[in-house]
């Protein structure tokens, strides 16, 4: 893949990310396949794929919230308000189904409100166990996955057998593997690719057919492996937070603009999305359950006191030799609000400096944020 090809690939990814729902609508018309929107974080997209439909992760758009205010209070998190707003405006009506998972009360309310504002649409709600120390969680997870599998079969009009589900798991694992390779390449040499571009690549993976995305990504990774990275001067930063919604690029520009180099992250539209694979031996439903229960990274939307997020974050930040951590809290995100004091305490005890920034759906003046970031980056050793 030549330099210009790399540019083409990035442009293709960017094109998808910039106007996701328009592009998906066109894709659906061209391919005649059903498209299912999955709420971020915990829904196993592989199940939708195995039913012959295209799973995509619902994304927040930049659109100002207007009509949606008649359906949802302003003190809900940005992605929830935005999705309801664009649903009311009819922008999600082309989806053949929407599947929501129990990650927090705001997500639950979004699912209920979607049912209300899109009465003709298929909206499903998945309740995987959230208290992971409870007895019988494996059985409960399998039962719930089987239940939603049956619902998806009805929607797709075809059965999901073990062979097709395993096949889908392989497709997703391959994409995750390439994303991890890319992540590691960049972690070793951040000059290879801007973090902003990495975000575009991850988000596009959530919005495109995985097969097509992997093919483009493989070419990109091969090319990057051969490239000599441009050297970067700056302070090494770890980006943490944003549990389920993607970042606005302007915050990334700010971080880089004040001399920060993002070397690693635990964002949902980042490492969290591709950190772990699903096993391909044995029962595929059980493998999906295992990934959910035993392998996925600690996150405060699930209760598991023995493996709290803050401990994991300190280890990851140290591992990546970050000089500081930027904690990004999506405004009104309660799972994050309640974990932040513990994250703060753990980082302080570990001697890792951090800065906490709240992000908003609405456009806010970034001047204050720039000043705080600048001061933070300057004081890092």
């Amino acid at each position, binding site marked *: 893949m030549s330099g210009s090809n790399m540019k083409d690939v990035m442009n293709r990814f960017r094109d998808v990310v910039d106007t996701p729902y328009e592009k998906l609508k066109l894709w659906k018309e061209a391919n005649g396949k059903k498209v299912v929107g999955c709420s971020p974080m915990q829904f196993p997209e592989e199940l939708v794929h195995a039913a012959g439909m295209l799973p995509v992760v619902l994304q927040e758009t930049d659109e100002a919230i207007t009509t949606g205010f*008649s*359906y*949802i*209070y302003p*003190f*809900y998190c940005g992605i929830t308000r935005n999705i309801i707003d664009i649903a009311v405006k009819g922008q999600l009506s082309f989806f053949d189904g929407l599947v929501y998972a*129990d*990650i*927090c*009360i*705001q997500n*639950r*309310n979004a*699912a*209920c*409100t979607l*049912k*209300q504002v899109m009465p003709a649409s298929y909206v*499903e*709600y998945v*309740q995987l166990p*959230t*208290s992971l120390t*409870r*007895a*019988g969680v494996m059985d*409960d997870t399998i039962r719930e996955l089987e239940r939603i599998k049956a619902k998806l079969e009805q929607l797709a009009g075809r059965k999901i057998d073990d062979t097709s589900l395993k096949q889908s798991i392989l497709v997703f694992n391959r994409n995750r593997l390439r994303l991890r390779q890319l992540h590691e390449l960049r972690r070793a040499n951040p000059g290879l690719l801007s973090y902003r571009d990495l975000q575009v690549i991850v988000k596009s993976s959530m919005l495109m057919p995985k097969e097509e995305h992997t093919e483009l990504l493989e070419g990109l990774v091969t090319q990057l492996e051969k490239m000599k990275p441009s050297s970067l001067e700056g302070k090494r930063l770890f980006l943490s937070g944003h549990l389920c919604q993607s970042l606005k690029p302007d915050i990334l520009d700010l971080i880089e603009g004040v001399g920060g180099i993002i070397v690693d992250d635990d964002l949902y539209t980042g490492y969290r999305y591709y950190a772990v694979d699903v096993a391909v031996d044995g029962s595929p439903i059980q493998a999906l359950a295992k990934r959910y229960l035993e392998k996925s990274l600690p996150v*405060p*939307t699930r*209760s598991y*006191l023995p493996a*709290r997020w803050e401990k994991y974050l300190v280890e990851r930040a140290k591992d990546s030799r970050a000089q500081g951590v930027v904690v990004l*809290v999506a*405004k*009104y995100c*309660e*799972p994050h*609000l*309640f*974990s*932040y*004091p*513990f994250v*703060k*305490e753990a980082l302080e005890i570990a001697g890792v400096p951090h800065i906490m920034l*709240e992000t908003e759906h609405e456009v806010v003046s970034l001047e204050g944020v720039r000043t705080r970031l600048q001061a933070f980056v300057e004081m890092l050793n």
Partner: protein
Amino acid sequence: METQVKVPNRLNSVSLIGQMMAASFADIKRQAAEGKKVVWANGLPAFLLAKGAHMPVLHAEGLIAGLAARGQEKPLQDAAEAFGLLPDACSYARSFIGLARIAKGDFHLDSSVNQDVYSMPKPDLYINVPGGGCGTGRLWGDSVAAICDIPAFHLEPRFNWDESDLEYNIADFIRQEQELIALMERVTGQPYDWNHLKEVLEEVKKATTLRQEIMKLCQHVPAPASFFDMAASIGLVCHLVGMPGTGDLLQKMKGEVEQRIAQGIGSVPVERYRLYWDGILTWPRLGVLARKFAALDACLVVGPYTHLLFLPRADMIDPERPLESIAYNLCDTCSNYDYTYRAKAVADFCQEYSIDGLIMSETQTCRGINSQSFAIMDGVARRLGLPAITIGGDSCDPRFYSDAQVDTRLQALLETIEARRKVRQL
């Protein structure tokens, strides 16, 4: 001409509830000093299972609402904010997490503050029973558990996305109850006392039945008791759930209500408007709000918070089947269904209680209780054509409340009600 000052007619028995609550907090301290293991809990009264383990329970909302109503919530919220908890997080939770930090010795109150009010025995176990399936209870419970280094159990009813889910969800809840009981046996080192649980359930049955009867009596015009009285009575079926004497107090309350009906006395001096309230009361402005409504000849009569949330299915309580009884009261209730069910329940309410208008209180830091407000407004408006307003507020953080905004919107609601009446008379 002398203008009459219209003040709310509070039920006399309501002040006894406050006394009983205060005595219970003192009792928790006494029991802890005697070496009893203590439970801290939040949410709905399924934590009454701890009674069978002879563990005293400090119920978060029971304590915090009372403190907030007396304007004593701020030191707790300061303790939480000093820890890094931002004001957008549930203010009940913030206050309780502040209390945990104080109990643990991680935060020291200013010497000018009455220390006794905030000094509660450290918990040995946390039980979270979320209202309306709010996942924030889980975050809150885990925070207290992490601060105090204790186990947390989340007794969470699964949401009835489809009505067909109910049977499974009840069975699932019963399994959770059994698991909690086993955990409590480990914490106390004692076998669970099923006989005592049965006795507790007998008192619960008596209290919840009486409470339902009192609420029904409020269908009478003028309403003999208000939403404010019924909100105070939540303590009897929540923090004080199953305590000896709760049934008797409700019996007294019922007697008072019946007497008022016989004498034609209402809960406000003049009842011109009967209103529905959705959401939690702004506890720190409780008195202000009660006086405001009375002065406007408006009575807050009914709301899901008082009428549908706390053990609303007295008919399903059978002391011989305690786990099922509790499971039904958690799983098969209005707040555990989606908007269609809720809107219908509210519309039925509005008819039964002759409601003129709806007030949807935006409990600003609670995304659980007011989640479907717009759907309810829409559903009720469609069915009955009742006018509705939203007003700002919060459960325990008065910073989200604005008197001026409430006055303006309330005025608009009452004017709309008047206009509708005129149209109907034509």
